[in-house]
Structure formats: C-alpha cells, structure tokens
C-alpha cells in the first residue's frame, strides 16, 4: 500500500496505491423549525393526556375493573375465533376463486367474477343481516338430489343459523371475495418464465402452482393479507347487529345494564388494540419468513453472505 510498493521487482503482483482515509465529521446545519414543531407536538400530547387523566367522567376505575371481566374475556375469545376462522375460510375461498379466475375455462372465470362482483358490491352489514335471516328464504336445506328432489340429510335453518354461524358465513364469504383479488395479484406478479422453467422440467399444472408459483406469490400476498387480518379483527364488531356475542356485543350488553357507555367502549377498544398490535408483530415475522431469496431482509441470506464480508486489512 505504501508508495515504495510500486518499486517492487518486476513480476511481483503490484498492489494499486490506496489513498489515505479522509473522514467526514461535519457540523449539522441548525434546524430551529424542527425543534419548534417537536415542542408543539409534546405540549399537545401533554395537554391531551392531562385532560383524559383528570376527566372524572371517564371512570378509569370502572375501565380497569372491567378489563379482566369474565364476560369481556368471553367476548374477546369469540372475536378471536370469528377472525381466525373467517380468515382461514376466506383464504381458501380466495385461492379457489383466484385459480378459477386465471383458468382457461370461460365458465369458471365468469363464476369467479360473479362471486367477487356480488360480495364486493353489497355492504357487509347487509350480508350479515341477510345470513342471519336466511331461514325466511330457505326454511330448511340438506344434502340430496338437487332441484327439489329427495334429501338424505336435512337441517332446519332456525337450528343451524345461530348468530355465530351467520357471522362466520357473512365474514368468510365476504372476505373470500377480497382475498381472491389479493391472491390473483400475487399469482400474476410471478414472472411467466418461472412457469415455463417449471413446465420444462416436466411439472404438472398442480406442481407448478404448488412448488413454484404460490411460494413466490406469497411474498406479494402476505402483506395485504396481514392488513386484511388486522382489519377483520375490527370488522367482527359489525356482528353486534345480529348479537354475535363477540367483544362489542358483550360491551354493549354490559353498558345497557350499568350505563357506563364510554367506559365499556374504551374497555373494548383497549382489547381491540391489544389484538391488532399482536397481529402486527406476527405479520412482521411472517413477512420476513417469505422474503427467502430476496436479499434485503432474509437472515439466512445474510448468514450466507458472511464469507464475502470484507476482511480487515
């Protein structure tokens, strides 16, 4: 590295000369506006916290008391069940509808399009009330010969359609219509060359989808699905119109008895925020898992790259 290396004997590998380091240790320009804005924001937050804490109408003792209430926890559990089940069913419906949408058959494409068109075109609230009252249209349904033929098994709508099953039907089928669009976008984001390479190896359509296309589509599908999940945690509160026994319904039942309307709504909101926070953290880790092969985030890639890290001279 020193200049006299250049005078090395001919035939030796000559290192190119390296300039000495020139560190940059610059003074930052003053930013008075930034300090002012920060001070204003802190003052506002302090005022907000003060008014909330000293406000006697908020009944913090009641809120804290009801956070662990048995009925509230029961509603919380129903909310979690509704969210997870309707997301799982919605995801399955969505993949199915997306694959139909991308198929060669015009009949399957049209069926899938009809599904998403109808369920995205009507309000979820209407769908929930509709499913809850489905018995008015179909008093009974069963498995057997279609078009009014004999039935093997038959159910009465009044027995099968509880608030929970009506909520699950409404949320899952509605969610499937949105997931279909997300999955379709994910599948379409995969380079067509990937499919060709897989087909050239002799893979069947199903193998191409399962081994090559879907794993890569997941990178595009996961972030919006996480958003859908978080959104679903809160959308379940709509089920309160059919008395679904989830978190908001339970909170409402309690405040109809003790008139602590705001306190009960805050109790419910705190639990919704806990759920969405946990879900956001989970989303972050799942996204990292599916970044495999895409250098920026994957820890495995970083581990693999370590041998290339520059050795100190």
């Amino acid at each position, binding site marked *: 590295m020193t200049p006299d290396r250049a005078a090395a004997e001919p035939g030796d590998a000559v290192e190119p000369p390296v300039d000495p380091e020139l560190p940059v240790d610059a003074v930052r320009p003053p930013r008075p506006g930034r300090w002012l804005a920060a001070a204003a924001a802190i003052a506002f937050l302090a005022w907000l916290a003060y008014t909330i804490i000293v406000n006697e109408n908020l009944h913090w003792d009641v809120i804290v008391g009801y956070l662990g209430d048995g009925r509230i926890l029961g509603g919380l559990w129903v909310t979690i069940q509704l969210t997870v089940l309707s997301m799982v069913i919605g995801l399955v419906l969505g993949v199915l509808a997306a694959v139909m949408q991308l198929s060669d058959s015009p009949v399957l494409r049209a069926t899938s399009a009809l599904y998403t068109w109808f369920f995205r075109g009507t309000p979820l609230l209407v769908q929930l009330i509709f499913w809850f009252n489905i018995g008015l249209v179909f008093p009974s349904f069963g498995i057997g010969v279609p078009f009014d033929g004999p039935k093997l098994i038959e159910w009465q709508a009044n027995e099968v359609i509880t608030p929970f099953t009506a909520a699950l039907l409404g949320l899952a089928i509605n969610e499937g219509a949105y997931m279909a669009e997300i999955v379709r976008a994910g599948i379409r984001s995969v380079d067509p060359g990937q499919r060709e390479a897989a087909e050239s190896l002799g893979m069947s*359509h199903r193998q191409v989808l399962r081994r090559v296309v879907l794993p890569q589509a997941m990178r595009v599908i996961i972030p919006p699905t996480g958003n859908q999940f978080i959104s679903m945690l809160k959308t379940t509160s709509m089920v309160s119109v059919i008395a679904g026994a989830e978190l908001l319904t339970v909170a409402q039942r309690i405040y109809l008895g003790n008139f602590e309307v705001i306190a009960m709504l805050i109790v419910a909101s705190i639990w919704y925020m806990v759920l969405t926070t946990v879900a956001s953290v989970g989303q972050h880790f799942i996204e990292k898992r599916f970044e495999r092969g895409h250098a920026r985030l994957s820890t495995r890639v970083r581990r693999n790259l370590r041998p290339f890290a520059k050795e100190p001279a």
Partner: protein
Amino acid sequence: MNEPDDSGRLMVRMRAVRKRFGAVEVLKGISLDVPAGEVVCVVGPSGSGKSTLLRCVNRLETPDSGRIWVDGELMGYAERGGRLHALRPAELSRQRRGIGMVFQRFHLFPHRTALENVMEGPVTVLGTPAARARREAAELLERVGLADRAGHYPAQLSGGQQQRVAIARSLAMRPKLMLFDEPTSALDPELVQEVLAVMRDLAASGMTMMVVTHEMGFAREVGDQLVFVDDGVIVERGHPREVLAAPRHERLRAFLGQVL
C-alpha cells in the same frame, strides 16, 4: 446419458411447422432434422422466429400445423384411428421431462438455493429420494464448476453462475435433448465464456443440443449444423465452417456483416 452408437438416429424431426401470433406468421413451414449427438446452432436476426422454433420443440408454444418428433415420439399428439388426439397435460409433462431447456433470462427459482434448484426436478417430478437427489445435484454443480455456491440463492450469483446452475437444473432430469434459447445474450461480456465452456463440455460428452445463439465463434467451433432462420423460414443450412466461410444467400451475408 447417450448411447455410444447414435449414428443415424434422429433426435429431432420437424416437418412443415407453422406458427402464427395474431396477424404475424412467425414460422412459415420449418423442416429440420437433428441427428442424435449433434449440436445444431440456430442463428438469425431478432424476430426471425428462431426462439419460437425452439419453444415449439418442447411445446412451450403449440404449432398451428406441422409435426415434431423427439426421439421418434410425436410431440403433443397420439395417433389413433387415423386421427390426431391432443395429449392430456400429464402426458405432455412426461414428454417434456426428457427435454432440457435453458432460457435467456435463466429463470432459476428465486426462493430456492442453487442446490435446491437443481434438486427440484428430480424430487418433484421423478420422485427421487431427497438424499440421492441432493448428492446428484451436488455432483452436477461440481460439473458446472459451482460446488462452492450450492447454498447461495440465485440473487447472490452472477449471471454466468446463474446460467450454469440453470444448465445443471436441466441436466438433473437426465435429458436426451437440450434446448438453449440465447443462453448468453443476457450476460455481461466477461461472463459469456464460462457458460460457453460448460456447453462445450456438454457437447463433447455427446449431448444432442439445439442452440439459438449469436455466438458465431461457438457455432463454428462446436456446431455440427448451422441453420440460418430469417422471416420464419430456414434460408440456409450446412456445416457451420462452410456456411460461415462462404454464405450463399445475400440475407445471411448481410446478417453476418452485422454480428461479426
């Protein structure tokens, strides 16, 4: 991978193959024979139909008319009672297994390491036990000079390395025919030779190859047959050294003037 005496056996037989994309007829009746063990280089200006020709062989494109036989087997159809019956997808997949394909843009599976890319075909398609597939994949990576890159993801490899992994991935299926669709066109100039070296070795081992390329040096040195395609027809064909030394057609002369 190939029988010692292949003399006279035709690996690929194309007859009157036509293909149209919308209003454009890309292939206007291509007939071509590739004897087993030979290397056929297909050259021509861009848009001449040479890639489509190659993609018809393993039916990534379906010809509108004409017949293609690979190793004596009619591609895409079964003949019963004097009529052609289009093959079911599963049978088409079986036909494709024996034909390796290398793409201009590699198309490695980005979510799998180099080793996993090479293992993918045998494990998924042939049902080879993972341990054996892993061992054979490692040997193939060694053969293309990438034994030390087995655990790398495609994004961590140079273009030349990715293309060599792609060649290994095709070879893992033990193909009887290899198709190369401009394998070096997406590479930086200094990376072209490492890929051509692997292809040269493969040709020397007796593999039957169809190579769409702009590398006239490779065609001259390795090719047994040179086919010049222009505007959807084969304009000139013959031994590469003779064709390149004395092109008969004006179109080929003009083309060579541009690429050499």
